[in-house]
């Protein structure tokens, strides 16, 4: 095994990622399996406020998941929709208006379609994984906001259409404002649970309107407690700034057309502290330091780390992570 022993490794780059685009019963699929797509190509039309309609057996046999076109009947025309299931000659169809579009977040190929569940894409290029994506997938030009401070300050209308990276703090208010300014998506190091809920609720309110709405994906790279962008991720984003990227949710990641070989990887012994008193700091793994007692009385395995500020610290191995 290369790199520091007993330290959790975290994938920094995923080559040719296979991603799922979530569908709901009633979504109308436009793409076909095996088709090549580029960023922005229409994959499906999203049903809004789906409802269940019961119709007669229809003129042709169908299997669950099939798209049933509108058919004239004795009591008027039965709407088009996805066949949920059929029982005793009666069809249950999921239907509704389809004002929203699901577009390909990056170039690739449609490898599988499961109606009402997911559409699987094999993307070209490379993915940079995160922990969660709020909202539907999207794409845009990457813009790196300066500084570690409050994200509200540097936002401007020139960022419309871009996916902005907040290197430091972001909250629901900032993200809602970004959306209102026409920004296409956001990447944040961390977002509190309350802010996540607010962003999702705001998205739901926006979707309640009648007009067609562009997606506003928010990719969260780490967790819930405030921390800054990891050095290796920041280095990659600096290279990607100005280029077209996509944000996808299954699994959550940022995707770029560049291959993994074109992007920098950190030294194998480079580590980041993700917990404890030195949280957020980065440095070089020096060696294991054996079991030590932490404040609070727990005894854990520890390691010596030469931090970037010149100090050498003993850190619990559980509090360290490295990027591979």
């Amino acid at each position: 095994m290369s790199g520091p022993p007993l330290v959790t490794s975290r994938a920094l780059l995923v080559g040719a990622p296979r991603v799922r685009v979530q569908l709901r019963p009633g979504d109308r699929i436009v793409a076909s399996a095996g088709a090549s797509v580029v960023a922005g190509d229409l994959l499906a039309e999203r049903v809004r406020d789906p409802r269940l309609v019961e119709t007669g057996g229809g003129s042709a046999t169908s299997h669950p998941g099939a798209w049933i076109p509108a058919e004239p009947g004795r009591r008027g025309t039965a709407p088009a929709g996805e066949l949920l299931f059929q029982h005793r000659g009666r069809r249950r169809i999921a239907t509704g208006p389809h004002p929203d579009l699901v577009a390909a977040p990056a170039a690739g190929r449609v490898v599988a379609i499961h109606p009402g569940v997911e559409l699987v894409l094999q993307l070209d290029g490379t993915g940079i994984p995160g922990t969660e994506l709020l909202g539907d997938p999207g794409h845009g030009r990457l813009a790196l906001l300066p500084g570690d401070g409050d994200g509200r300050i540097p936002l401007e209308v020139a960022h419309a259409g871009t996916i902005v990276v907040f290197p430091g703090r972001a909250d629901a208010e900032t993200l809602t404002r970004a959306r209102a300014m026409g920004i296409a998506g956001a990447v944040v190091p961390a977002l509190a649970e309350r802010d996540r809920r607010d962003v999702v609720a705001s998205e739901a309110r926006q979707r309640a309107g009648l007009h067609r709405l562009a997606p506003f994906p928010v990719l969260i790279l780490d967790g819930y407690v405030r921390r800054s962008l990891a050095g290796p991720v920041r280095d990659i984003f600096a290279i990607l700034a100005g280029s077209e990227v996509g944000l996808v949710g299954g699994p959550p990641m940022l995707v770029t057309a560049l291959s993994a070989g074109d992007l920098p990887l950190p030294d194998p012994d480079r580590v980041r502290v993700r917990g404890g008193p030195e949280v957020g700091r980065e440095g070089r793994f020096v060696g294991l330091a054996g079991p030590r007692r932490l404040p609070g009385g727990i005894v854990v395995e520890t390691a010596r780390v030469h931090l970037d500020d010149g100090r050498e610290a003993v850190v619990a191995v559980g509090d360290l992570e490295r990027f591979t």
Partner: protein
Amino acid sequence: MTDAATPAREAGAASARAARARRDAFVTLDRGTATCAAAVVGRVDRRWRLLAATAVPAPAVPASAALVEILLDRVRTADPALATDLGLDRPGTIPPTIEAVGSVMVHAVVLAATEASRQRLEADATAAGWRTTGASAERLDPLETMRLATRPDVAALIVGTGDPPAADERDLVGELVALAAGVAERRPGMPVILVGAAAAHASEFPLGTEVVAVPRPHGDAAVDLRALLAARRAGPADARQALVTATATLAEVLDLRIELLEVGMSGALRARAEPGRDPGAPARIAAVEAPSAVLGLVDDDAALDRVEAWATLGLDRARLRDRLAELRLAPWADLGGDGALLRAAALRAALERLVESSAELDGPPPDLVVLAGGAWSSIPAPAALLVLADAIRRPGVVQVALDTARLLAPLGTIEDGAERARLVGDLIADALVPLGTLAIARGVRAGRQAGHLRLTVGEAPVDLQLAGGRLALVDLPPGQTGAAELGFRAPVDLGVRGKRFAVRATGGLAGLVVDLRDVPLRLPERADERRDMLGSWEAALWPERDR
């Protein structure tokens, strides 16, 4: 111990070759969701002994060789002669390995014809370790059910009715099966378990669907649905199933009534075993898994309320939720400082939920409570005893021990019962760290002098006045035993009701703890007062909590 004794489950052919060459040492691995615990066991003076143990983040050791090598190196450094005797002196040679693997959280959707059968099915699936989402044909929203059942995290679909179906089920079975077949069409590869009369509809599912039919005519008791579902959930060498086996073995070996409590990141387990009635008879064992009693999972406000009620760290509700979410993301991180306090609060909440979910196992206190799993090791050992006392308010006197090296699950994977019993018998003293004796009395009025305690160890008695509403602690180190006389001014419930009790106290890291607090525990409504009260109890058994 005979020379033929070797671990029955070994990792890989290379390990098997090593086992034939050398039978004086082996390695145990307990791969949990959060941490991987490893231990080196060797034969010393014709007895198996624990030589070294540690636990590290589970994702950090996809291959265990590096971790085991670190432990072997410690053995070589500490006692080179012993390492040579056991054949551990050459770096790079890994002894045979016994491994238990923790289960991940698995989700099943339960579809039933009626609400009553849904509740029964969900209860069985939950006790078998599945997290469930249920729907019945009586209250079915097909769109919502389809959306829930086709989520990527759903690992199985359980469809059930009575057999024969009840009058109110007959009309609903067909539609239910049609919906389930629609789910199977969309999620190829997901197994479908048909219970009761639904089993007759297996042919209605798409070709290639794995359908498990469990007819159970007239609720056939011979078909143990819970065991079947548990087997479907568990992977090979499943740690929770192994812990159940190990609990039964402990009861046989110690001839004691044992209760094992395990809490983890993917669920929790409560198992009770008691020795067979006749000498040599196998132990009787009952176990319930509680997937809802997951450490730190706050999927709704009620779950957060539970943790907040036990929190002794000064965090507002939003921040507490974020810290718990971080705990779920990286449970191996942030163990020091208030990270330990957070875990203690989450552990109490999970334990409460485990006990609620396993009410069928309630009964008189066992002789020994064993705390197993990595979550208990994330707080100091004496604090673990306090967490137990806080969350399970059961009058009586019990010994408490901690499976600190996490040997029980790997030992429980050994298929040969006699071999397993020999190893457990040898390793008990090393595997189970005694925490002490916990006596919980009910009916003591808070704030009053309630009685006295006299603990006699050898020739030196220790006398202590007992006050209601408080914890009385007597230092009794591991390995020591004493005779404790408890006298109360008014009758109390200590498992049995009375005023004077004579109990045998065994020592441990927490000593003898006489808990005279309310049963059930009554805590102040105000958060700061509650925190202060919980903190004062924690300070008594956990002096390092602020250092």
